[in-house]
């Protein structure tokens, strides 16, 4: 990559979309609803597993204002899914989780649709439900998808070296068992949208999502239409975090508009959003780690089980990521990890910021710190001796992609922690006035892939139109990239302007229509800056070259960027080249633990990231700070409770998110720019990384403060107090 002059790269330019968002002018999906549209109301299953014996819609159809009641028989191809099309749009025979949909009521008003939905009579025969991932793997367990004959969605082994021998020779061997829970995306804007059939017989869906062209693909398949006959447009998107990657209602809007030939609208209540869209996977992780006396980690063995819920979503990929990261960001010669993704009758799980990495490294990072303690070694020193370096072999036996910055990231974190938290110095008494408040510091590292993995045909396409006589006058950049709130549109625009050597104002963006803008790929996996940015960069260069050569007023170029290829994991050994880029992170946190109530307050956070190159420093900091808020919630607060397949916390009053007062008073984002070989101007992704080390760093800090290890996420006050009581009970008994 060339590194030309950069007056726009790194600049903290204000976001053009912010103006409409601070004045109320920005239109989010629910703001598109107009008088005269038909309103949709879903009938949810509200039971974890049942056979539909009878479905009587006659009373609902006769209710005031009702235009239609759609059911499974109205869906041309009744299956969708990002990877496996295993989820019905409307269930016809069996419901597999409580958020499954059985009927779609279409009425003249929202109130009429809601009232009529209550009149849809469904007769169920309840089936035995399986709501625990381990139980789902047992012989004789109820089957979520009977036709598959098993609840096992994926088993992926990773084998490297000889763990049996390594454990036999290790000086220290530790075992651990960890569990993580669901996490709800809780984007502030609940799912909503409109759809209609336009004068060209195209079904147009205006909504929110993360990937225009993938939404289009699934909707077209469901309606059995050519993709060109489906137009997906994104309004302002009120957050996503992975939670809009699966279809939620987009296809149902399309179905109703297509069937009724009238504009339709739907807006989910928060509790509908909470039960119906996918979640972060709960994991159950059991592992064994071994190290030599000299502090060389020599062996990791782990079993990593993901509760995928009722439908496949992206469980297979999430589980592969978790399996890959079960040994963290350390070069360990002997590895034996088995990852399992399992169907249950719980809410389906899929993408959520971090995508399997936070769960796996909650276990791995705690194990590394415990190993260090067992060896009598500083946890940082143990990390330093084992952490990935340029050329290190991954668990999949291939060298890491170029640009390995795990060690400099860690070193910077330690440096900041020494300076700001006095890490490593003997601690004075915690809070002299309050002996029940104890303080501690924890450090953890993290790794997360940037972009799609495991042999996926990763691409991003952009088109650039240029206009100008002697000089470039303006540019139009076409790229179907979702700005879910992360600021992608400004980043892509900055890259275009910089590459073309023109002002930001001379670049206009076409981003939100699947019929106009080419496929950028998903706004997920921390990939849009690297992938979309590189496509824009390359298309801008190509267009500029054409424009210079042709001496015409206009020129255009379209470029499809492909990063270095990855490969599928070998089904026996997991061998392969899983990823083309990683992001590296390290964090130091200081906590205060109330030993009487178990409450943990994070006082200070240092979060260090190699972003390759910050395209917009303010936006990079915003990603780090915002991701840390979700990490605080994940580590300590957000307790998504499910019992027997029923979500017990479907409201914001029961599923608690961090408020402004719950944030650490001091957050120090530290941004390193060590240049990625593929990214535009050396940029790589950052959006997910702060979530990866945070929970284990907090666990280590709690241990530092009190001497107890937490192994369940979230680390709620009750769990902390239980751990403290258990320790005190033991010490009294001992």
């Amino acid at each position, binding site marked *: 990559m060339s590194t030309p002059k950069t007056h726009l790269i790194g600049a903290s330019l204000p976001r053009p979309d912010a*103006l409409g968002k601070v004045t109320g002018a920005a239109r989010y999906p629910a*703001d598109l609803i107009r008088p005269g549209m038909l309103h949709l109301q879903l009938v949810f299953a509200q039971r974890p597993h049942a056979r539909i014996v009878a479905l009587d819609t006659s009373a609902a159809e006769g209710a005031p204002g009702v235009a239609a009641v759609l059911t499974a028989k109205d869906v041309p191809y009744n299956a969708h899914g990002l990877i496996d099309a295993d989820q019905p749009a409307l269930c016809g025979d069996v419901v597999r989780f409580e958020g499954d949909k059985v009927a779609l009521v279409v009425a003249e008003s929202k109130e009429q649709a809601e009232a009529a939905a209550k009149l849809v009579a469904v007769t169920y025969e309840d089936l035995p439900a399986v709501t625990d991932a381990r139980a789902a793997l047992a012989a004789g367990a109820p089957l979520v998808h009977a036709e598959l004959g098993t609840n096992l969605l994926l088993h992926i082994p990773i084998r490297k070296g000889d763990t049996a021998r390594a454990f036999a020779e290790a000086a220290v061997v530790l075992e651990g068992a960890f569990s993580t829970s669901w996490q709800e995306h809780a984007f*502030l*804007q609940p799912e909503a949208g409109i759809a209609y059939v336009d004068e060209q017989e195209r079904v147009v869906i205006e909504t929110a999502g993360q990937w225009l062209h993938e939404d289009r693909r699934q909707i077209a398949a469901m309606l059995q239409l050519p993709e060109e006959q489906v137009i997906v447009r994104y309004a302002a998107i009120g957050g996503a975090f992975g939670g809009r990657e699966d279809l939620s209602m987009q296809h149902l809007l399309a179905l109703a508009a297509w069937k009724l030939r009238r504009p339709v609208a739907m807006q989910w209540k928060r509790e509908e959003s909470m039960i119906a869209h996918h979640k972060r996977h709960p994991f159950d992780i059991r592992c064994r780690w071994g190290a030599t006396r000299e502090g060389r980690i020599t062996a990791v063995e782990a079993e990593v089980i993901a509760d995928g819920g009722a439908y496949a979503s992206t469980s297979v990929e999430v589980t592969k990521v978790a399996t890959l990261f079960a040994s963290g960001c350390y070069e360990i010669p002997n590895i034996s990890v088995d990852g399992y993704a399992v169907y249950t009758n719980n809410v389906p799980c899929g993408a959520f910021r971090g995508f399997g990495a936070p769960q796996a490294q909650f276990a791995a990072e705690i194990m590394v710190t415990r190993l260090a303690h067992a060896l009598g070694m500083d946890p940082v020193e143990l990390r330093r001796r084992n952490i990935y370096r340029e050329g290190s072999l991954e668990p999949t036996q291939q060298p890491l992609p170029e640009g390995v910055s795990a060690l400099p990231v860690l070193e910077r974190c330690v440096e900041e922690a020494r300076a700001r938290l006095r890490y490593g110095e003997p601690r004075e008494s915690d809070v002299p006035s309050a002996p029940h408040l104890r303080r501690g510091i924890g450090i953890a590292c993290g790794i997360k892939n940037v972009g799609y993995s495991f042999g996926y045909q990763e691409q991003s396409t952009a088109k650039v139109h240029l206009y100008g006589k002697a000089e470039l006058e303006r540019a139009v950049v076409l790229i179907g990239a979702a700005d879910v709130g992360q600021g992608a549109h400004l980043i892509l625009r900055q890259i275009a302007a910089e590459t073309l050597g023109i002002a930001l104002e001379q670049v206009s963006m076409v981003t939100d229509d699947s019929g106009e803008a080419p496929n950028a790929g998903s706004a997920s996996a921390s990939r849009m800056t690297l992938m979309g940015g590189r496509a824009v960069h390359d298309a801008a260069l190509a267009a500029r070259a054409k424009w210079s050569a042709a001496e015409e007023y206009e020129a255009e170029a379209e470029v499809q960027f492909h990063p270095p290829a990855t490969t599928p994991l070998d089904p026996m050994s997991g061998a392969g080249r899983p990823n083309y880029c990683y992001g590296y992170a390290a964090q130091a946190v200081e906590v205060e633990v109330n030993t*009487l109530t178990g409450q943990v307050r994070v006082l200070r956070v240092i979060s260090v990231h190699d972003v390759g190159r910050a395209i917009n420093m303010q936006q990079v900091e915003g990603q780090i*700070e915002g991701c840390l808020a979700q990490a605080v919630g994940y580590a300590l607060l957000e307790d998504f409770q499910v019992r027997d397949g029923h979500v017990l916390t479907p409201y914001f009053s029961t599923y608690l998110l961090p408020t*402004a007062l719950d944030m650490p008073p001091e957050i120090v984002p530290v941004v390193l720019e060590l240049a990625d070989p593929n990214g535009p101007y050396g940029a790589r992704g950052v959006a997910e990384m702060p979530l990866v080390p945070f929970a284990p760093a907090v666990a280590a800090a709690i241990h530092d403060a009190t001497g107890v290890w937490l192994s369940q996420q979230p680390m709620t006050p*009750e769990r902390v107090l239980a751990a403290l009581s258990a320790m005190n009970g033991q010490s009294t008994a001992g």
Partner: protein
Amino acid sequence: MWRTYLRPASMAEALDLLRRYAGQARVIAGGTDVLVELSRGVRPTETLIDITALTELKYVREESGLIRLGALATHNDGIASPACVAGALPLAQACWEVGAPQIRTRATIAGNLVTASPANDTIPPLMALGAELALVSAEGGERIVPLAEFYPAFRRTVLRPDELIREIRFPALRENQRGIFLKLGLRRAQAISVIDIALVLTFDGEVVRDARITLGCLAPTVIHARTVEAYLVGRRLDEAVCAEAGRRACDDAAPIDDLRGSAGYRRETLAALVAEGLRRVAAGTQAAGWPATPVLLETRDTSSTVALPFAGVIATTINGTAYELPGAAGKTLLNALREDAGLTGTKEGCAEGECGACTVWLNRQTVMSCLVPAAQAHSGSVTTIEGLAHAGGAADEGDLHPLQDAFVACGAVQCGFCIPGMLMAGAKLLDERPAPNDEQILTALSGNICRCTGYRKILDAVHAASAEITEGGAA
């Protein structure tokens, strides 16, 4: 959610309506509980009787040693009342721990009592303070019920369907009395209590002469910890006594497991909270941490507004423009703004007052419009995000409120969905105090959830706007 909205202009009219509807209607004031219940189908009704026109019921005053709270006294009124802070600190502390500013400005203390959840924060302090309620009805006149006898069972009260709480009253704490309220919640704002306790102790010098200790979320109703109350009489509050009292409190509790915590966790933390409360009362530090000037997000104004009679068609002023909203009497203010007035800048994030995305100004208050019946805006004035720039003094089209400018400049906007509500709360804070500190800003915004930014740049933006406003004012 309801069909008929009645807004009586006098107490006599209100009582007459209650009698006529004979339990078929529900009384509404702040609406912060009633609207949540109605949206979930709890105690449904077709008719709401809004008593907020009875402005004579909005008072907190002390008269010859008695503190009196009218039925319309809000949590903010309790917090802002010097008499309440001096003479009923546990109550003021409980009011401060309820919800977020947008809730405290609307929610009445009487309403908190009537909702009757054992988790309602004002019940333990009022019970410990020995409160009694004046209940009125058209036929029965007025009767006095001690709060301790108000709750016969879980979530039930002795309030008759035709009755209204007119007043809550209790003796102000005397010089030899000290009290405290402590709450354990799962986050630092907007948390329903896991447990809460109130202590009111009467001393002879350093010896406890009388102790009243009440426990929330530790039994089907709020209860007295009788064992501990008896134990403490005649003792000095040394460390051993405080700890022992904490242990004994568990004997008085009969908690259950629920979403917020197990019975075991409640017992264990009860011991800690009682001991901690006693230590602080013994040390005289019960008021430590009480904010000198609490953030209220409302313009304190004692001048009473005359509400015009409501006859089914809402006539209101929104952003300085007169609106008639004929179809909105059965809606929330949020839905009326979005659907009837066509102002979609105000957002729905949760529809239960938890996220703040729907925050607007109604008259002098900063409210969550999802919990306001639209009819309460009748003859009033509403400011939404679309009118913020003008309200902030912007002269020209396209000019913004300084806080809007600051949000753009500081990078405080990501997805932006929370931003309209965040700005309405933040701008009211800057009206209330032009140079707020961190704690005041975070408190003011504690009712507004942002899932994108981590709040840091929002905090920066409020400081930046504050600097702009105060320096602009100086120049």
